């Protein structure tokens, strides 16, 4: 591996890397805008300039020339070089702004240029607070401006597509967005138009920027030129607590960050995980967050009447014991965590019922071999690895019709809404439902309805379509007081306790629900089964010990980027990416 000297520090770098990436890998910040590790480096922002020198080599002997002290003689290049386009070479000597006044000056000069036509409307800009231009200007920029002219006017508030809005004046022409559509998504829906200082990105004539990954350009835009039509002007970045977690709209389990304010999910952005989604996130993952905020239930119900939690648990236990285990049908869920499904399986086993089945959520043709899959449930793999089988609609119907089922136990799913049976089929059957939403169509038939925490409110594990086990972290609080959840909220947030602008502790917007790993043990206890674990962490620890399909999937090992599970236990199902 080549050795290079950066600011008098000798570091080993990867051959073929760019100088900028090598510096970033060493935690040596070099300001930059246009460079993105996943895309080509056009070196157009000119912010990452550094001084670069190479050891002088004797033309005859091909050996390095040494000075009197025996140190190699370094010839510096006459011009400053853009570190993003410069490949590292052994012996290279680099001076950044830390050691070179020249570089410091150049970076300052460049920021002065970038800002002269920038509207500086940070007070009303959605990017303010997480804006590379703003941050780097504070760090490396000039103190004032010498520009005394009218700024260039460009189109503003242009809808490039249904989800992305352009402010041309804020654009600094880094071309990250156009390169994304050319090199990453391949849609070619964006290009730069006009010339010189009037440049800005635009769709070609007759084209709408509507590709299913369009919102990634909002993440990679280093200024507020591209903003989310959905999220813009809704909340400032510093008003939202940010929790790293995973998305739930499909089986890919793309890593994301949930932005939460006052216990409402406000926005979802991409989180880098090179094993799963790299830097990107599909638009559907970003926009499917209202389900966490809207139509949420308020407390449990018995026979449609509000009840307290104890009564609901007791009634559920009574129903489960009112018949033989063989006449209780358990439905697990590809929408709930592996831990909750495991507890359900333990409960079913205790009662002598068959192992739970799960409802497949397949939408044929939806997958695209990238971050979207035909499977619209996040944890089908987890269910399969627990030995659950996909529920056949005909089987359920015939068993219901044949009167084989006295009690139907539905965990966090909706068999009626999914079309597996009709409400009429459930007449005479005692239905226990853990539900996410008041719109759950099985609810009218429910003898006992138990509100369940959703993926952004619980702790748990999803296994994605490639067998990658990843942790969910609670992004918003629920009404139920739970020490495990409270601690996990504190540990998960990027800034530990969340921002002071996020009043997560007030009861407004908190949903009166419980995670499965609280409600299932509560019912199990009442039927004589002790499922007392110290939270989901302990459940997963047990599962990773006992079940070879989950070997290695402890919380510590999964961390923020997850664990790839043993592929030999990968069930061959239609949950694979299309």
């Amino acid at each position, binding site marked *: 591996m080549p050795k290079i000297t950066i600011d008098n520090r000798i570091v080993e770098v990867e051959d073929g890397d760019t100088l900028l990436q090598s510096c970033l890998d060493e935690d040596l910040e070099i300001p930059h805008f246009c460079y993105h590790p996943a895309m080509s480096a*056009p*070196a*157009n*922002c*000119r*912010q990452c*300039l550094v001084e670069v020198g190479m050891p002088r080599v004797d033309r005859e002997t091909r050996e390095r020339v040494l000075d009197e002290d025996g140190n190699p003689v370094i010839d510096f290049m*006459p*011009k*400053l070089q*853009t570190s993003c*386009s410069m490949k590292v070479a052994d012996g290279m000597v680099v001076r950044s702004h830390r050691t070179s006044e020249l570089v410091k000056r*150049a970076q300052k*000069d*460049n920021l*002065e*240029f*970038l800002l*002269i*036509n920038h509207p500086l409307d940070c007070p009303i800009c959605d990017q303010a607070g997480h804006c590379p231009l703003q941050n780097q200007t504070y760090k490396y920029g000039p103190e004032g401006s*010498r*520009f005394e*002219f009218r700024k*260039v006017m460009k189109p503003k508030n242009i809808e490039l597509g249904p989800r992305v809005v352009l402010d041309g004046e804020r654009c*600094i*022409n880094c071309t990250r967005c156009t390169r994304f559509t050319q090199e990453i998504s391949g849609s070619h829906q964006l*290009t*730069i138009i*006009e*010339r*010189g*200082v*009037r*440049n800005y990105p635009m769709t070609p004539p007759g084209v709408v920027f509507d590709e299913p990954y369009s919102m990634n350009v909002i993440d990679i835009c280093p200024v507020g030129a591209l903003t989310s039509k959905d999220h813009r002007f809704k909340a400032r970045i510093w008003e939202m607590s940010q929790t790293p977690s995973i998305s739930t709209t499909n089986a890919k389990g793309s890593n994301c960050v949930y932005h939460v304010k006052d216990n409402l999910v406000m926005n979802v952005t991409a989180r880098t995980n090179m094993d799963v989604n790299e830097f990107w996130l599909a638009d559907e993952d970003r926009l499917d967050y209202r389900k966490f905020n809207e139509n949420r239930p308020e407390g449990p119900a018995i026979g449609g009447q509000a009840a307290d939690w104890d009564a609901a648990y007791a009634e559920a236990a009574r129903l489960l014991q009112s018949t033989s285990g063989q006449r209780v049908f358990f439905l697990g869920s590809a929408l709930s965590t592996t831990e909750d499904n495991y507890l359900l399986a333990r409960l079913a086993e205790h009662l002598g019922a068959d192992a739970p089945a799960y409802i497949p959520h397949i939408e044929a043709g939806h997958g695209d071999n990238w971050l979207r899959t035909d499977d619209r449930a996040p944890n089908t793999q987890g269910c399969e690895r627990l030995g659950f089988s996909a529920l056949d609609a005909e089987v359920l119907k015939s068993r219901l019709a044949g009167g084989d089922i006295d009690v139907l136990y539905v965990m966090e799913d909706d068999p009626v809404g999914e079309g597996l049976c009709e409400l009429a089929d459930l007449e005479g059957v005692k239905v226990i439902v853990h539900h996410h939403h008041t719109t759950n169509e099985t609810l009218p038939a429910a003898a006992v309805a138990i509100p369940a925490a959703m993926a952004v409110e619980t702790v748990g594990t999803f296994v994605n379509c490639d067998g990658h086990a990843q942790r969910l972290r609670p992004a918003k609080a629920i009404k139920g007081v739970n020490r495990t959840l409270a601690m996990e909220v504190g540990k998960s947030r990027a800034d530990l306790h969340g921002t002071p602008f996020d009043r997560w502790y007030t009861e407004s917007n908190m949903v009166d629900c419980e995670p499965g790993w609280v409600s299932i043990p509560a019912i199990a206890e009442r039927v004589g089964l002790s499922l007392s674990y110290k939270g989901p962490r302990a459940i997963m620890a047990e599962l990773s010990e006992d079940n070879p399909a989950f070997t290695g999937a402890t919380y510590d090992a999964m961390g923020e980027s997850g664990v790839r599970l043993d592929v030999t236990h990968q069930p061959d199902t239609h949950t694979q990416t299309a």
Partner: protein
Amino acid sequence: MASKAGDWRNYKRVLLPPVKDLHRLDVYEDHGGYDALRQALTTDKWDPASVTDEVKKSGLRGRGGAGFPTGLKWTFMPPVNPDVPRFICCNADESEPGTFKDRQVMEYNPHLVFEGMVLAGYAMTIKTAYLYVRGEYADWITHMERELEKAYAKGYVGENIMGSDFSMDIVIHKGAGAYICGEESSLMNSLEGRRAYPRIKPPFPAQKGIWNYPTTINNVETFAHVPLILSKGADWFSSIGAPSSPGPVLYGISGHVNRPGVYEYPSGMLISDLIDEVAGGMRGGKKLKAVVPGGSSVPVLRADMIDGVTMDPEGLRDAGSMLGTAGMLILDQDTDMVSFLRRITHFYHHESCGQCTPCREGTGWLENIVTRIDEGEGNVKDLDLLIDLCSQMEGRTVCALADAAAWPVRHTITRFREEFEAKCRPSLVATHVESAAV
């Protein structure tokens, strides 16, 4: 310093000889046209390598502005690999203000360019050549297309040229009217149908050019010299004009002279000879104020700086300017240098492609300030700001447009500062500082 052009008054023109209708193929043939090509392709006299050697020996330097030795550039092409396409490209995107010589060659002697391109293609074993002409030259594009068709019909271009086993096509490509396309890497992007943003160098065109294949790009006038070098010999060529940059040069003279135009003379002409004799002296008997010797981007010379200065790279370097394209702007005593600079800064502002920050933002800022001074609203400190901005732009961009925009500003201000100060608003504070005794 004396003229390096020798007996230039008796110089016989070769690029633009005084022959009526030379653009017509039959006339061109009657005057020795395509003889050099015939000799190269149908006799043993020239093999490809010796063509390159002869061009190298002649000392021909590129006429597009940078003055790079042409023969040397040709040797940068990698060894021939039949599986890898390679190209030559003739840069006829002549857009530098004050430069209009290539247009003359295309109009009056187009076949000389074609012959030069085919010879260059033969020297570098190339099957496809592009001729990239700026869009504004619409008339000359149709003209060249018509003549190229005739050359094809006569077998001077195309399959098995003159019965030899060498084949080469010439494709005329019309630009859309952007100065930046004259920059060779932009030109290649434009030719490929991309946005004409200059590319980062290295890699150079000889390594990764058009469609990332080895490419050599030369100027129209450069290619036009090649048949002459082969038919008259490298020694003939190198004996003309200044030894360091020999050969005939097309001087494009414009501005306040009596006979502006394109003049073919040996390199190394005295600027004063070109103005006083070739161009017929200053218009209206006025006094000379300034000369921009090589297109608008090169540093301007004051009238008192041109004594004995010759039009070759070394002569102009010593005088504090550059040869560039040898497109000379001659300015008389009545010229308002602030207004002159305002027009130049407007041009570079308009033509900056907008890829790199310093050029995109800097060119507009320069124009803003110079305009303000020109309108009498400027302050003296603006002049220092202008020089500062030039330093912030020079050498910090992908291509040289930022330098081309900054040099005229820097040098026009430093060389005519009193004119700029006179146009600025009077300072409210006395700026005259006595040098204090230490």
